[in-house]
């Protein structure tokens, strides 16, 4: 049983690292959006997709592991309570670390989302305006009054 928990702690560490990777990626994406660097955004998206596949796989592993420990449907917050007495300090540390990484990721993802949404909103407004604004001047008027 202890081994199962230790294995799970290892897994949490891995998951945490993955989240850290994703966090960096989100920051990069935000920066790219701010620069209006579409190629950069595109590149981030591709990496994101790859990482999200890994994340899916890990998620399934998590479910298997938790089931193995008899902790199916127990959330991270319940991990410590459900850990064996002697592993609790370790569990607490692992849970806290994972949680902080998760929070970091969420905040970075939120920033990226806000930035993207704002840009999109403005672009949509512009494109809507453009539909009836014949703004494109082929040539300038005779500038001499």
């Amino acid at each position: 049983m202890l081994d199962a928990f230790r294995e799970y702690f290892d897994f949490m560490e891995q998951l945490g690292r993955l989240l850290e990777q994703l966090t960096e990626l989100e920051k990069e994406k935000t920066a790219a959006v701010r620069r209006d660097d579409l190629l950069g955004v595109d590149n981030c998206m591709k990496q994101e997709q790859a990482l999200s596949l890994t994340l899916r796989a890990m998620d399934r592993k998590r479910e298997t592991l938790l089931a193995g420990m008899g902790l199916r449907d127990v959330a991270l917050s319940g991990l410590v309570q459900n850990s064996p007495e002697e592993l609790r300090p370790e569990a607490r540390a692992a849970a806290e670390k994972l949680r902080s990484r998760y929070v970091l990721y969420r905040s970075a993802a939120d920033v990226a989302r806000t930035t993207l949404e704002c840009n999109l909103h403005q672009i949509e407004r512009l494109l809507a305006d453009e539909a009836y604004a014949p703004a494109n001047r082929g040539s300038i008027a005779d500038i001499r009054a």
Partner: protein
Amino acid sequence: MGNLSTFGTFTMARLGIYASQYALNVTGNNISNINTDGYSRQSLDQTSMNYGAADRYQSKYDVRANGGVLATGVNQLRDQYLDIRYRNEMTKVGEMDAKLDGLNQLADIFDEVNKGEDQAGVLEARFNELIQVIETQHQDQNTNQDDIDKIVRSAAEALAIQFNDYAKQLETLTENKIAEFRDELDATNTILTKIRDLNASIRKSEVFGGSALTQRDERNLLIDELSEKIGINVLYETENLGDGVEVEKLKISTSGDPERVLVDGIYAAQLSIAKTTKGYDANGDEVPPKDATVARWETVENENFNLNISELEDAKGNLDPADPNMTKQVFSVQSLGDDASDWDKVKNVVKRLTFDNSGGTTAAQKAEAYEKALNEQYGFTTSGTGGPRFHVSDTEMTDGEKAAGMYVVHFHMGPSGTEYNFVNIDDERVTQLNDTELSGGLQAMRELLTEAGEYSTAATLSRDDLAYDADAATKRGIPYYKAALDTLARKFAEVMNEANTLPDEVVYRTNKAGKFVDETGAVLADQTDRSTYVLREEYSYYDGGALFSNSGNTDDTEGITAANLSISHSWAHGSVHVLQSTQENATSRANDNLAHIIATLTKDHDFVYGSNTTGVTSFKGTFQEMLTDTIAGTLAKDQNITDTMRDNYNTTADELYVDRDAIMGVDLNDEAMNMMQFQKAYSAACRLMTTYDGMLDKLINGTAV
């Protein structure tokens, strides 16, 4: 456990309960203050209780436990390194913000991109229109001279009015900026006063053992705010109040070199715009203030907007006995005073000065050396006893003053006292900050108001004999743009007037000796009265003269600026016309001079910094290039750079804010976690109590007596 008494365990449990409770209170306080501006996260200081005193014979096999936990105080979580970094960055942000703000307002005037009809600009378009009417005037063949004048004049007038308008806008901008500078100065002074008062209240609280955390937060916020206005250094010193009582003393000084102290614990200084004393002689002309001919003094605000730091005072107006600024005191001649009380002022002020007393060995020798130095410094005679001069006395001092190297200094008026009795050193002693000592928003505003860039002259650079900013010649504020616009207006007027004027001796009758003569050849009585000159026959058509002047009421071409550029009185009233030709016996449609005017309007000119005689060519190009490339273009580049720099500083400041907040800020998740932790600790301590209770029960009731 040998050193813990039987019931001591209960104490331990109780302490645990107390500590957890305190900790929960602190957490609760943190959570409720999450939105309080400037709130620093607090944490409970806990120490393990240790009975270490009687362990002399401690066996290494003995098992020891400490006696529980003590909550020793509540602390704030702040990282002073990050505070410093953040404030340094905010100084730069404040500086760039103020600078960019000013530059943007200048651009509202000078940036003609996308302005005007068909985006053809404003003043730029006026130039084009003027060239156009002269270029194509010949097409209206029925035009007589008056009609040509009318057309050209109205284009020229539009141009002049635009110049005037720009100058006026610059004037308004300057006024607004000065008002803004004063407001900022007031705001800065308010912050300094508030910090001083907070220092006093924190000190009071500390004397009685409190930690005054709320006041500290408030003070930190104010320091943050101050850092945007002035570059500062913050220092926390310890002040010994005697009897082993030590309290913290906050010292804030400017970050320049030398550092000037703004706040010294419960004392704070105030900033004001420095004053300059100007002297005027009996005719009302300005003369050096120490000149013997001075009849009247006037104290005005310094044109360079140098700042003065007042003496450090506490809330009750008591002076800081250890005022560190005053050792570097500069004192100035302020106003005429001839009553006896002024003597006291002289004495008092100078007495406060510490000085280099290395000259000589005896007190008398030292006094003599100082007297000489002082008189040299202020330009008074250093020999003899006559005339106005300082006299340093070594006999009127207390022992303490002697020890501090202080001497009583008198000021001696000359034998003809009323003639020279001008010196009265101001009551209010101040330290004047020179050009390079300030940074931050206030400095940026000062620079905007004073820097003339390449138009700086030796005189403006060394105003008030204070050290000037070596970079001043590359810093461009409102004066630069004003000078550049004036240069353009003046050059334009000069060139146009010259193109429309022939030398008197060419067009007017002279005799062989070069004297002006009348129709009969008789020499004119008054050779300087131009109204009596008679045109030569071949120039009988001539009606040239100045087209532009410094006022619509005259033909005076002296001192033309953008603000006063006008159509000359004579042109406006038809006695001067645009010269179409400058040839002898010019024919009706000869247009050589119109061609010359166009060539002049479109050719390169040398624009000169400062006055024409001493200046250096600043720019060679057409009038319009001067306008769009040198004036608007320089501004645009400055804006561009400042904007980028502001962004950079802002980004760093944002990052530092987040970093700093990571330490001092409250995070709900964190606190929630803490709450759970402390709650568990509380439960555990309670449990401990029950356990011991059980144990003791066994011991007391379970063992036979």
